[in-house]
């Protein structure tokens, strides 16, 4: 039994098709990231799961029970689904206790106790009497989380939950929230457009493009085994290298990589910036055009000395200790774990 599943969901706003046969399942207790560019239909999928939007076709199941299907619609208030809104949408006329307790079917002391527990859980004990405008951004975030968790939903939906926070706060809140959600054990589907965030937070990542899931896998598999060129290129800088496949190996000017199952003939090789190894040996030579520090790594821009077609510029990422000087001549090889062969496009 899955906590939440979408089965062949289709939805359009006017003539714009937002979801096309969207299918995705979330196991109980799992944290799944729904990753896509803005406008790819992520938020719509969440709203359909919550019952705030009704799809034109397909089925939604919560805890194995059908809640949206042709001829069937369970109202949002009767679903076992919690939603944390992108803009938080705390009720401005209610204090923290009023907000957190809003979805509780309890009253009096029982309600106060439950709200107290939730506030302790999110680290806001003793703040029950404050109003949303008196809280910092991070605190508001935690109140919204406590409010969504209060009724004990079987699945929690998070819509870009960290986008309203500044960079420093974001990392802190993010790791706190992951720990907290794991502790609570609720299944979580969270929407984001930030690949790094998806890889960091989720047990499984579902990459979405044009209204459908392109690949759904663990973060490691997404990173090391992208299903296609789109997924490979979605997670940061990559390089394109033309290749020719002969008998299960793809030959490029930087060496050959394994290409089991690919037919003989031309193919596309995509290598992540981190998959280009810089050395001082023989083989493919390139000039370092620029070498800059980017966060904990170095980003290196390279120009091949003898450029084969389509390769006028390459991007590599190295550790800072291996950061080359601008103008230096280096040799390049491929890290097979971050080099992918795809059928030739265009």
């Amino acid at each position, binding site marked *: 039994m899955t906590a939440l599943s979408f089965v062949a969901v289709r939805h359009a*706003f006017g003539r714009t098709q937002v979801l096309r046969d969207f299918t995705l399942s979330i196991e109980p207790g799992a944290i799944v990231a729904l990753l896509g560019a803005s*406008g790819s239909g992520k938020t719509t999928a969440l709203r359909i799961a919550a019952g705030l*939007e009704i799809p*034109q076709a397909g089925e939604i199941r919560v805890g194995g029970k059908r809640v949206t299907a042709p001829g069937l619609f369970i109202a*949002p*208030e009767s679903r076992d689904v*919690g939603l944390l809104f992108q803009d938080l*949408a705390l009720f*401005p006329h209610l204090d923290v206790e009023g907000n957190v307790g809003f979805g509780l079917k309890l009253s009096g002391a029982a309600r106060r106790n439950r709200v107290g527990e939730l506030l302790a859980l999110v680290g806001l004990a003793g703040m029950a009497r404050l109003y949303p405008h008196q809280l910092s951004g991070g605190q508001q975030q935690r109140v919204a989380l406590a409010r969504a968790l209060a*009724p004990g939903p079987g699945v929690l939906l998070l819509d870009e939950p960290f986008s309203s926070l500044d960079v420093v706060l974001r990392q802190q809140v993010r790791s706190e929230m992951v720990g907290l959600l794991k502790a609570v054990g609720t299944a979580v589907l969270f929407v984001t457009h930030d690949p790094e965030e998806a890889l960091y937070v989720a047990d499984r990542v579902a990459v979405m493009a044009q209204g459908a899931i392109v690949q759904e896998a663990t973060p490691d598999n997404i990173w090391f085994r992208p299903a296609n060129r789109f997924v490979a290129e979605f997670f940061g800088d990559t390089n394109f290298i033309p290749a020719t496949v002969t008998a299960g190996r793809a030959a490029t000017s930087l060496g050959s990589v394994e290409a089991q199952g690919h037919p003989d003939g031309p193919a596309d090789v995509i290598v992540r910036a981190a998959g280009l190894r810089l050395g001082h040996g023989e083989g493919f030579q390139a000039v370092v055009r620029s070498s800059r520090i980017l966060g904990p790594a170095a980003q290196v821009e390279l120009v091949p000395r003898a450029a084969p077609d389509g390769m006028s510029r390459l991007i590599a990422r190295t550790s800072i200790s291996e950061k080359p000087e601008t103008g230096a001549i280096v040799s390049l090889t491929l890290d097979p774990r971050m080099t992918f062969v795809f059928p030739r496009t265009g």
Partner: protein
Amino acid sequence: MAVYGDISGRMGRQGVASGLMAVLLLLLILAPLAAVLAFATADTGGLWAHLRATLLETYVVNGVMLVSGVVAAATLLGVGLAWLVTMHDFPGRRLLEYALILPLAMPAYILAYAWTDMLQVTGPVQDVLRQMTGWSVRDYWFPEIRSLGGAIFVLSLALFPYLYLLARAAFAEQSVSAIEAARTLGLSHAEAFRRVALPMARPAIAAGAILVGMETLADFGAVRYFELEVFTTGIYRAWFATGNPAAAGQLASLMLACVLVAVILERASRQGRRYASVTGVRRRPARTALKGARAIAATLACSLPVLLGFFVPATALGAMALNASEGIDISRLQVLVLNTFMLGISAAALLVGVAMGMAMLLGRRDSRLRQVARVAELGYATPGIVVAIGLLVVAGTLDAQLRAAGVLGSGEAGLLLSGSIAVLLYACLVRFFAVAYGPLDAAWLQMGTRYADPARTLGHRPASILRRVDLPLMRGSMAAVMALVFVEVVKELPATMILRPFNFDTLATEAFQLATTERLDLAAVPALAIAAVGLLPVVLLSLGLERADARLHRPEVLPR
């Protein structure tokens, strides 16, 4: 990412039902106006031909002179003063910036009473003149206040603040860099005003001028008191003196046609306004500090309209009230205040209820039907007397239907609606729907599904959300709207006078009756009471003036 509405498709049947109810409500509000338009082709038994041959020309000529006079004077005053206070600094500027909206507290008819008392032969001004010169009454010529000129004078004083507010907002919104660029390109301060600031503010000024023109056309109290022959007084005379409803109706339908044209013009000018808000730095303009004689002149120029439009008439009314204190019947006054408050509060509650209901029936997001619903705001642009005529027709028709169905007896007993408080409230609904609906619908749409969506995912049904989220969040807007409607109803004269139940008087009708029966001194107390109530929105407005939002007091004046 776009935020989409609530449960779109599934609302299906329910959505259609609430849409239908909204349309019914819309028709109810528009019915009296439709009834007036239906008169356009009615048979008047020759009176219309007679009117056209005789009085119509007078109405048109007087109307054109009155409207153009008031629009010209109010524009000059409003725009000039707005320029003075936004771009200059002079003694008393901060206070005067707010004080200039005080005349809004006084309806034109009350200014008319006060100024008549001041300037009539036995009034204080001529008294002083005679004492100083030793002239007797026949020795000199003095302008007659109860004339076309007098009407232009009081209406300009009563209405210029609208233009002042709109022009002030337009000047304040303007990108300062445009004016600074003009100065660096060699234009003098005055040239920069004429060639840059004024053209940029023109759409707002045009909208204000149209608004003032419509208010002038709609005025009944002041022109009736001054015995001017214009459309509103003509309608009144045709219906009540000549007893020819069809002729009154035709005049009213002609007025309504004018209103429609003006509304369309206003809409067009508002659309043109977009180019006024060019992007650029929105800094507060650096004010030019005026010195010496110029500073004194500026202070005087700003004080004079405040004095003439508020303090002098208020003082005159106060003095009159004191002089007449023996003649004042306290128990009568209590009845008047009670009636006025009862009417004002019932109308305010009704309007807020209907407007809120309409907003909710139309759902939580913008739609084509919502655009259509804004046509109901037309009643606010329609003169009160025209609305009153429409209601007399609607109530009369309904009564006739009820009589025909045998529900009512014949004769006087056969009138259920005509002359009842219900019809008066209906008139308020038609006339002031825009005042309530404009801001409430805007607030409702702005809220959208933002709080309803989380409430639903937290397990609350729509009825519970209404009670626990929607209404508490709308409380502030509803209170403000109630206050605005209350004030409008208290000030409203012609519809109340025509539609009120027998023996039901309000402060406005009492003041009007006393004034027109030459008991101006006794009219002073109710008039002062109205002005006091009228101060309420002025205070609200000055609190919001920093946002330079003229629409707080005249929320959505016309259909968008």
